[in-house]
């Protein structure tokens, strides 16, 4: 029997993977071939999806991107034995896109069946949790602190400090909350964890629960990820049935369980305090800090709230030790960052690497430039609230501090490439429009500022007092940046200001451009 791997990641599904899997089964039956289909996760090479792999004596051989009409030809070419075909990639791990990566967090993605407990255990699964149970709370926190891991959601706050604060706070009940409200355009790493390696997140949250003394975990996932929700819930059920979750985790005497909650389409709920409000059943309105969630969080109890990637990194750190993780990276940005190459990019997908590559290396060497073949004009880093970088800034190293020094942010690691057809005034307007749609309304700079920003940009577009309105827009951006309660209003000016600074030629009335 030959095992054929057809990914169940939503990217593969969106490109017809279900139908391809069915066609492979049907064709095999018609031709008398003995085939069993494994629905694996994605390797993150989205430019090759659906990436079909066949298990041969020489290892797994990949073919992609496969469409429905290629299936018969693949059989003709003897792909079940790794035969030659135009779509043959060879061994996926030898592909340059994967070979150049350092996969610590995404080591299993694409290799295993995401919901198979056997696969997970066979690929270093639960080693971190087992060691965590052995060494106990204080030593776990110590490992995380020494690893230098910083919050991967965007703010980059040291994870160990957060865990220690919760561990040291006395309470009758504590929570671990996983922020999976991955709303930033150009990001999909959290989604991939849910769909392609969900047990890693379950293990990471359980380690965190042991470390801080929490018994209940919540994953708050955005509703735009129905496939991730389904996969994670399936994994939760299986993990619970196998004793990895519940009243007595792996016989350790510690109780921990996880529940997945679904958001309802509000971007601002990715902000941690708005997320907590939403979990409690209220409008996703930002809370003023202090008190910190670590002391006074979900239902007023001490709460660790971390991004998916931060929690998902804990199993590696516990299994291999803090040093193994901290050895990667540069400066105060330790470890690896799963970059997400998106937008108009030739080789789009997930690229996990140590901090320190330059933006130019990421976009041009790894990403291969634009998908359209036109010159790169702008790269937005860190989601809809991140700055636009022109090619002139491509020498910026990818780390938290270097990006901050250039008035940008790495955020959740999303990198969205635009070619030279992009109009930056339109993108600046979109940033304000998006902020206006998604503002929770609690603070004035964000609630009113975003709407006024849109209006001012419309005036510039229409050629009304352009110089005066540009100054007004700049001033408004400063007010939002320094006066907003949270990152939504505070960072929405980043794309606007960076567009104004780096692309002044776009900031003139558009009728005038047409007349030129």
């Amino acid at each position, binding site marked *: 029997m030959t095992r054929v791997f057809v990914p169940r990641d939503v990217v593969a599904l969106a490109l017809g993977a279900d139908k391809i899997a069915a066609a492979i089964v049907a064709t095999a039956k018609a031709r008398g071939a003995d085939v069993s289909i494994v629905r694996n996760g994605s390797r993150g090479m989205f430019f090759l999806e659906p990436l079909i792999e066949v298990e041969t004596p020489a290892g797994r051989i990949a073919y992609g991107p496969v469409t429905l009409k290629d299936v018969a030809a693949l059989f003709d070419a003897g792909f079940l034995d790794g035969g030659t075909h135009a779509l043959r990639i060879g061994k996926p791990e030898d592909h340059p896109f994967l070979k150049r990566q350092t996969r610590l967090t995404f080591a299993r993605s694409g290799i295993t069946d995401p919901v198979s407990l056997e696969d997970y255990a066979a690929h270093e699964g639960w080693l971190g949790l087992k060691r965590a149970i052995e060494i106990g709370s204080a030593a776990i926190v110590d490992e995380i602190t020494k690893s230098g891991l910083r919050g991967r959601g965007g703010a980059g706050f040291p994870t160990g400090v957060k865990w220690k604060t919760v561990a040291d706070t006395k309470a009758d009940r504590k929570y671990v909350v996983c922020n999976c409200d991955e709303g930033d355009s150009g990001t999909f790493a959290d989604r991939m964890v849910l769909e392609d390696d969900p047990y890693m997140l379950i293990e990471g949250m359980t380690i965190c629960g042991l470390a801080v003394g929490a018994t209940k975990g919540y994953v708050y996932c955005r509703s735009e990820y129905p496939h991730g929700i389904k996969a994670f819930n399936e994994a939760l059920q299986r993990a619970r049935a196998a004793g990895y979750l519940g009243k007595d985790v792996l016989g350790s005497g510690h109780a921990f369980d996880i529940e997945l909650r679904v958001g309802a389409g509000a971007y601002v709920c990715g902000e941690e305090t708005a997320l907590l409000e939403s*979990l409690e059943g209220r409008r996703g309105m930002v809370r003023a800090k202090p008190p910190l969630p670590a002391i006074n969080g979900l239902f007023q109890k001490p709460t660790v709230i971390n991004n998916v990637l931060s929690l998902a990194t804990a199993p590696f750190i516990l299994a291999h030790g803090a040093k193994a993780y901290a050895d990667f990276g540069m400066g105060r940005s330790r470890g690896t960052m799963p970059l997400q190459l998106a937008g108009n990019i030739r080789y789009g997908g997930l690229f996990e690497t140590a901090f320190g590559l330059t933006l130019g290396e990421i976009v041009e060497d790894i990403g291969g430039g634009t998908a359209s073949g036109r010159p790169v004009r702008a790269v937005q880093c860190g989601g809809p609230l991140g700055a636009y970088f022109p090619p002139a800034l491509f020498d910026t190293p990818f780390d938290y501090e270097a990006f901050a020094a250039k008035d940008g942010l790495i955020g959740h690691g999303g990198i969205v490439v635009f070619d030279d057809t992009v109009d930056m005034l339109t993108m600046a307007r*979109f940033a304000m429009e998006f902020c206006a749609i998604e503002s929770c309304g609690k603070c004035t700079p964000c609630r009113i500022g975003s709407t006024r920003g849109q209006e001012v940009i419309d005036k510039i577009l229409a050629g009304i007092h352009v110089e005066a309105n540009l100054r007004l827009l700049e001033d408004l951006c400063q007010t939002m940046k320094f006066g907003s309660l949270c990152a939504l209003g505070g960072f929405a000016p980043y794309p606007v200001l960076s567009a104004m600074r780096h692309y002044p030629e776009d900031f003139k009335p558009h009728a005038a451009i047409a007349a030129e």
Partner: protein
Amino acid sequence: MPAVLDAQRAQEIIDAHLALEGPLLPILHAFVEEFGFVDDTAVPLIANALNLSRAEVHGVLTFYHDFRREPAGKHVLKICRAEACQARGSESVARHCLADLGVDWHGTTQDGAITVEPVYCLGLCANGPSALFDDEPIAALTADKLVSVIEEAESV
């Protein structure tokens, strides 16, 4: 999809969630799942069960984009308008799709078959423009591709 709220079924849904911590969002999701939308008459039922004011429930119901307060079309098409899809031409594809269907954003086609909503990121950012047709994801969206997806759905 019942047009009027079945009060008994509504109460069952509420009761099934009362053991949860912070049950309001799961209840509202369950209403949308069951009835297709949250009817205004559900608000006092929920408020009563959770010991909240009707204003509080109304506030939550109207805050979130997902909680529809009126029935949608038979199918819901969500087209991504976020930056990564814009970089791959989503705005022009969306304009074509909307024109073909004869609706604007949030609108429902005259025959009640399809409601079109904007969505800001489906996590398919390297393969845009992307869309979600009911629960079926679509990458590399074109107006032609959408026509075939709709035809296939209608033929079932």
